[in-house]
């Protein structure tokens, strides 16, 4: 069943100098219910813009984004977001952060307590309920952020490079945990990352974005069984293929930009 429908979406950003800039051009894809869908691409390809549109923080210049047939017009808990820098409320404890969305949803009080306890347990943070975010490590903060997003029972989980600022060991551990949680409580996940290995490890499908203007170049299906072994030849092959392709894209981009930059220099 198709759940998220991104239909011919273009987004123009206006730069500080007032120049219009094409951030996304005719982006078009669909995400199935309970699918783990990743979006990869080099920086500047409009990944975060796409997530902002899906979350409802921004509106597309052209085209439409729909969830379950309804056009996205504003942010809402049915599309909970996990941010790269966690975005936890520093003035609330772990438990209060996880509870935040439940209070906004007007969930009855005893049910709130049960859900907070359940999701704090799910991300392995029992015993830290009354700590403030600043007292936690990066990995623990991101787990709070995931628990906070899951607690409101969103139909879609939007994740914007959630593990990018963690160290390698913590990142791999968090990836495994996320997969476990996702398999236990299936949800549609739209996962943004610049790491191809991460995308291949986690996803059902991967959309590869090309930069300037941001557009979907290809959508790859990853149908290896989970858990995936990063040394499995098939996985290695797929990763190498995508990486090679991306490297070529970045290289082409550089070349197409350099003469223009050179001309600007000469004009000064």
């Amino acid at each position, binding site marked *: 069943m198709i759940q998220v429908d991104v239909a011919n979406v273009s987004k123009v950003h206006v730069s500080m100098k007032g120049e219009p800039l094409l951030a996304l051009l005719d982006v078009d894809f669909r995400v199935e219910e309970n699918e783990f869908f990743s979006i990869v691409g080099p920086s500047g390809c409009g990944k975060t813009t796409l997530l902002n549109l899906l979350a409802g*923080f921004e509106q597309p210049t052209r085209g439409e984004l729909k969830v379950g047939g309804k056009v996205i017009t504003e942010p809402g808990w049915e*599309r909970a977001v996990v*941010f790269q820098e966690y975005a936890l*409320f*520093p003035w*609330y404890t772990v438990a209060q952060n996880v509870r935040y969305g439940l209070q906004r*949803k007007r969930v009855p009080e005893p049910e709130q307590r049960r859900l907070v306890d359940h999701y704090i347990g799910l991300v392995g943070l029992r015993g830290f309920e009354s700590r403030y975010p600043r007292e936690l490590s990066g990995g623990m903060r991101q787990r709070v952020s995931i628990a906070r997003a899951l607690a409101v029972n969103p139909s879609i989980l939007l994740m914007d490079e959630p593990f990018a600022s963690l160290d390698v060991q913590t990142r791999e551990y968090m990836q495994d945990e996320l997969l476990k949680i996702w398999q236990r409580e299936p949800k549609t996940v739209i996962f943004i990352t610049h790491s191809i290995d991460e995308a291949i490890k986690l996803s059902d499908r991967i959309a590869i974005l090309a930069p300037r203007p941001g557009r979907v170049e290809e959508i790859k299906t990853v149908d290896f069984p989970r858990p995936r072994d990063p040394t499995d030849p098939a996985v290695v092959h797929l990763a190498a293929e995508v990486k090679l392709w991306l490297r070529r894209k970045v290289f082409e981009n550089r070349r197409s930009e350099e003469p223009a930059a050179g001309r600007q220099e000469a004009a000064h």
Partner: protein
Amino acid sequence: MPSSPSLDGEDARSPGALTANRGMPPTQEALARLAASMVPPPPPAWKRALSRISRLWLLAVFVIAWQLISMYGQRVNPQLDVMMPPPTAVISAAADLIARGVLLTHILDSLKRVLLAVGAAAVLGVPLGLAMGWSKRFRAAVDPLLEFIRPIPPLAWIPLSILWFGIGDVQIVYIIFLAAFFPVVLNSLAGARDVDTYLVRAGLSLGARPRELFLTVVLPAALPHIFTGIRIGLGIGWMALVAGELVAAPSGLGYMINNARTLFRSDYILLGMVLIGALGLVLDYLMRQAARFAMPWHRQ
């Protein structure tokens, strides 16, 4: 050679259960004990008190120098008696005024005025600043008026305010209010305006409505700035108070100083100055404690 306790339990003197579970990960309690054993014991209370007092040595040198210069300087310059009375004279002046029951009245009158005025500045200034930070349109409308009034020094208002309110509490409170109001507004404004975009977005995506977003995200995010604004307002207000009382007042520390000048009582003048400094310090300390209490997450 004294060896420190080690985690693998090789050392027989290592505290507690660490030796018991060789090869097993040490328990949290054992680790806590180990950590405690590595920290040197805190110095006894009298040593800590002494070290705290000894930090004030420069202040002590200053007071002693002042005493000596005032006492022995009079042999060189007899006028020094009036120009700069020694600390002991200031203390006896305090005892004198307390005995006559006027000192406490002056202090309380000054405190009452400053607290009333800064309280009013906070009650009006914080909501105004937050609203200006929250809504660009509101800010655009209010800003020109505010920026026009703000550069006028509070003291320039004294003649007009005497015409309006006469000489008394209302007039002085008004002057202090003017002095404290702008730092409160501007800091609250900055606090509400500079809230982290991601926190606002997190709130929105978790279903917060505008009113909830304001109360649960914007207000707590702005709170440190609000406290800073009130602290600055209190400091500037305290200075405006003394200036206002010097010019026209029926009582208060500023009045006491000015009155003492007409009587050539420089010991009273110095006493007033010392009290103004000390009370300003106490007020600021209380504000910082209040901020710590109100924002437990914000501790350094």
